[in-house]
């Protein structure tokens, strides 16, 4: 399964098995949700926003390995970032999962998601949690669904 180890890199399998920040955040002042009606993925993201800074972020939900790992990696990468910084990181991730190109600045552990671009049907799995989090941080409480051409 050569191609599959590109998609399911050890970082992803690890985050799927032991998702980080997997809890309800009691101090959250923003909550976002995302769902993928095609496969039943459901993700709720909790954000504690201080000014325009994401002081803390967590998530809960169920879904495939890609969506779980991507959301778990997201919580690790967005903690402490401003909304603008978070959007820049997401732009890099989006470019990476759609084109396979890793952005100039180091994507660090997020680069594990680069293999997704070879599986177009799975791109939405990788971006679902990010949409939910960024929408919540920006104050849009509308649940995110993959059925909208939003990515």
């Amino acid at each position, binding site marked *: *399964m050569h*191609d*599959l180890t590109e*998609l*399911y890199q050890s970082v992803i*399998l690890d985050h799927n098995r032991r998702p980080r920040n997997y809890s309800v955040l009691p101090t959250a002042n923003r909550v976002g949700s995302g769902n993928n*009606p*095609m*496969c*039943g*993925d*459901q993700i709720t993201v909790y954000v504690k926003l201080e000014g325009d800074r994401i002081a803390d972020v967590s998530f809960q939900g*169920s*879904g*495939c*390995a*890609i*969506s*779980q790992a991507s959301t778990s990696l997201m919580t690790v990468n967005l903690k402490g970032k401003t909304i603008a910084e978070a959007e820049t990181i997401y732009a890099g991730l989006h470019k990476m999962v759609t084109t396979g190109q890793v952005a100039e600045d180091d994507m660090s552990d997020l680069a594990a998601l680069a293999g997704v671009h070879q*599986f177009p*049907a*799975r791109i939405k*799995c990788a971006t679902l949690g990010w949409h939910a989090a960024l929408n919540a941080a920006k104050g849009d409480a509308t649940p995110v669904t993959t059925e909208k051409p939003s990515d």
Partner: protein
Amino acid sequence: MNAAWKNLRADFPILDQQVNGKPLVYLDNAATTQKPQCVIDALTHYYRRDNANVHRGIHTLSMRATDAYEKARERAAKFINATEPGEIVFTAGTTDSINLVANAWGDENLKKGDVILLTEMEHHSNMVPWQLLARRTGAKLRYLPIVAGDTGQLDLAQLPKVLTPDVKIFAFIHVSNTLGVINPAAELCAAAKKVGALTVVDAAQSTGHLPLDVRAMGCDFLAVSGHKMCGPTGVGLLYGRKALLDAMPPYRGGGSMISNVEYFESKWAPVPAKFEAGTPNIADVIALARAMDYLDDLGREAIAAHDEKLAATAYARLKAEVPGLRILGPAHHRSGVVSFDLKGVHAHDVVTMADQEGVALRGGHHCNQPLMKKLGLSSTSRASFYLYNTEADIDRLVSTLQKISKFFAG
């Protein structure tokens, strides 16, 4: 099995290809089936030689197209043993057929307090149109439950409790697209008749898969999709008892469905034309009739036996040879649908990995969200067999799932 079964895979050119470097094993038949060359030929022949609009034409091509279109109606009537071709309305498929009944029959006949009875295993296509009807009329929805556990059979002991005289229509799926259960359609129709309720049978997964006789079943309406029985996409039919169709108002207005039009009022054409507004899906209807010929050459008893044998073999082998697999549906007396949950691996991941091995599966809620919730699952993976699948396909399925299980456990 007769001679038509010999070398049958050669009838399906699509099967002969490599997917991701491996020979294709197509196990997504509950979503759509492949088309034999004779059906593809029927389509191209129509467009190359006979294409013209039907019914109003005087010229030769139009007469030819009309003749083939109406012969297809006769073929379809015979295929499900309707009393006459006038009981067959061509539609876009099962969803379209059910919406036709829910609108044309439902709006006219249901009122506040009436009950629409469904089952817990309905496909969204046999649930949402009734939810919309209930909202329009004030009628209530009620569900016949399935038994506890994973066999997924209807809890028939509950039937007398839910099928009461306030039930005006009982709509149920004949063969479940998720569980592989074959429901006792004749028994359910007879029970409905006793309380004066009409029946609508969603036969998307059964027509073309097992012998089907609407008069023996005793249903009032039956909805069929062509593409799940070797026919083209975008075509299907609604069977309705003639007296019911005659009494129903039209569903959609337009050309072909009228006998006389004035600026402020029109008179409807007799059935089935009343329900076929606009230029129909001529080519696909003709090709669907060819698919019916193909299936009857093989014999529907034989197709059902073939599917059941493969499903039973797959069920037993998956259970014995793939660790951590939870299989839904009964072990025996089932259709070719086998849904399963591989512990700790999401269906999406199973399907992506199987695809890399050339094995086409489906993962998700299979348009059965409430049922999935009831079973405590968000999604399952599904292998569904049809007439061109073989024991060798099961070998590939088993070894692929073993590989996936190992990969995620490792």
